[in-house]
């Protein structure tokens, strides 16, 4: 069931997920589109997530936004429910208590050990989004696992000290007993500045001709978990199961690439080690069970399904 409406207030609204925003020219959503979007959300019981550009909006926009309960996704260091930073622009001292999305390429990720460690001591929650996930090789998974273990050691100390910072790559799986995917096109839709609906911002950025009718999304069942043959049997519950990445890498929205699965399983397995390490010292999340497995890609065991 649809639950959220993402509204991109401007063509330059901050990208907060896997796909970069290619737009460089400002194009503010027309006020009547904004009003229609808010009205649509109200009439369909949707929670709105407004996505902001890096400049101040006119007052009448702020007034309109205030007419409905919502969340704000803003470019760092602006203030909002979620602040999105590119690695190079992040100032750690400004992040105390915040929910931060940190978007990085693989190369940046591998040298971000200290930055992330420092952030984890500050933020309430850190979401690391890798923007070139499809470039991961199997050889990259070993250093990636080691990097996660390093952050896990720090998180373990924090948790044992009674603080609970969250890092999506490690703590989400530890807390989840069921999948928590992105569910674009099933639980959320995006309204773009051009007044059209998209499955998510990435589809607007890369295929703006592929808008959808929210009342009749073609092949919507293929966006659902029960129609994803690999994901429906998978317990990397924290994985985003990004249908945009799926479409781009395998040409089918319901099938993930090897890279998406292998990266998510490296995180899953690191979460398992973290959970075990915490449990050595304290009772923790007894209802969660992350089993030991011998694969990093559910595709490799599909015969056993």
């Amino acid at each position, binding site marked *: 069931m649809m639950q959220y409406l993402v509204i991109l207030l401007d063509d330059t609204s901050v990208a907060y997920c896997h796909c970069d925003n290619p737009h460089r020219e400002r194009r503010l959503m027309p006020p009547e589109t904004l009003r229609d979007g808010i009205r649509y959300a109200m009439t369909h019981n949707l929670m709105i997530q407004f996505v902001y550009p890096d400049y101040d909006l006119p007052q009448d926009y702020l007034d309109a936004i205030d007419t409905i309960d919502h969340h704000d996704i803003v470019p760092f260091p602006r203030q909002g429910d979620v602040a999105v930073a590119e690695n190079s622009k992040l100032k750690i001292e400004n992040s105390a208590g915040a929910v931060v999305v940190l978007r990085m390429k693989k190369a940046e990720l591998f040298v971000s050990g200290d930055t992330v460690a420092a952030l984890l001591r500050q933020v309430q929650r850190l979401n690391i989004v890798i923007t070139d996930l499809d470039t991961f090789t199997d050889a990259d998974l070993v250093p990636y696992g080691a990097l996660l273990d390093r952050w896990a050691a720090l998180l373990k100390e924090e948790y044992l000290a009674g603080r609970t910072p969250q890092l999506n790559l490690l703590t989400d799986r530890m807390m989840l007993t069921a999948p928590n995917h992105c569910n674009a096109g099933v639980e959320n839709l995006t309204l773009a500045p051009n007044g059209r609906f998209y499955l998510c911002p990435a589809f607007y950025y890369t295929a703006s001709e592929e808008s959808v009718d929210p009342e009749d999304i*073609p*092949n919507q069942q*293929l966006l659902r978990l029960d*129609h994803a*043959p*690999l994901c429906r049997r998978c317990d990397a519950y924290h994985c985003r199961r990004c249908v945009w990445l799926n*479409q781009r*890498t*395998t*040409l*089918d*929205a*319901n*099938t*993930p*690439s*090897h*890279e998406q699965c292998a990266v998510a399983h490296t995180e899953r397995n690191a979460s398992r080690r973290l959970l075990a390490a915490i449990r050595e010292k304290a009772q923790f999340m007894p209802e969660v069970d992350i089993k030991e497995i011998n694969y990093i890609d559910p*595709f490799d065991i*599909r015969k056993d399904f």
Partner: protein
Amino acid sequence: MNLKSIGDAWQSGMAKNITFIVTKDCQLACKYCYLVGKNVKERMSWDTAKAFIDYVLAREDDFREESVVWDFIGGEPFLEIELIDRICDYLKLRMFELGHHWFDSYRFSFSTNGINYHTPEVQRFIEKNREHLSIGITIDGTERKHDLNRVWKQATPDENGIIHPSDRGSYKDVVKNIPLWLKQFPDAGTKVTISSPDIPYIRESVMHLYGLGIHQVNINVVFEDVWQEGDDARFEEQLMLLADEIIDGGWYQDYACSFFSEHIGKPLDPVRDNQNWCGAGRMLSVDAAGNLYPCTRFAQYSLRSKKALVIGNIRDGINPNLLRPFLTLDRTTQSPQKCLDCEVASGCAWCQGENYDAAQTNTVYQRATAICLMHKARVRANNYYWNKLYRKLELEGRREEFERNKRSVEHQTC
């Protein structure tokens, strides 16, 4: 015709199908031909063929199937008999030199319109490769039925190189080669494709093919959305007439028509019967440009409304991510609810290429069901056939004997 369809148990199901699209040219321009983009321009070069063979044979670990069927299609493959001869010689040589496990278990397979079958070049090739060959000639039935669709192309293609049909039928040019073909391949079958205008000719066509000495007629209705109102009733009527003639004339003992099968028309279990129907993704095709496809139906010349689904090329190899949707396909995920609830679902086929072409989005996971009413009509006629046949056999006390000796008919989709 592919190997599965000739009633030959040879390594059935364990073979890799690898297809060379050697040319997109053909002498004919059949009106139902799914190859919407046939043209005279795209012929495979020797360099492309060789590079493809080298690519495949160098990856024995990636292609573990026990056997291989090297398939040659077109257009009309025998237009490129010289190239094919060279390819086959090279395949044999390299499989031997590399000690490849396929050297002990390979076939060359052809689907031809039969027009060049008698030529010295083709006959020399057959002589040389006889032990490893299966050849299917497509003949659609009686002369009037065959010539309804299988016509010669116009002498000159249009300015885009696209071939258009003429008025001249090809029956006489094909039928003259049938005796030679059956002499060389007595167990061979033929493939018949039924579209809406062909329905009135089904009975006479199958009987005609039996009369020519063809024991196995593999026949199916096209998957495309071509059907008119009332076609299902007309189809059922034709199949009942055919059933009567086969049974009353005693043809059922030595001849088989794939329309009649004891295994169709039952409900399917969502867990036990959840396999995909066709082998797309487990097969591999290469075209003249060196592009690789999960099946030939995904090449551009076979598609009406979608872009070709290229999974790689002979230089960079196969992108394994692009095979993942195919290798995880199952029946229930791609089928609409009506098919999951269907009381007569078994034997109702689909073609992944047509599914892709007809889908609302870019996916191989949306099953096209244009054949729905036709399948249901087939099931009714099929029930009639077996009820009538078994009653007759029981009355004659010959049912057990029949069960022991009956020809197996395997499903075939394309």
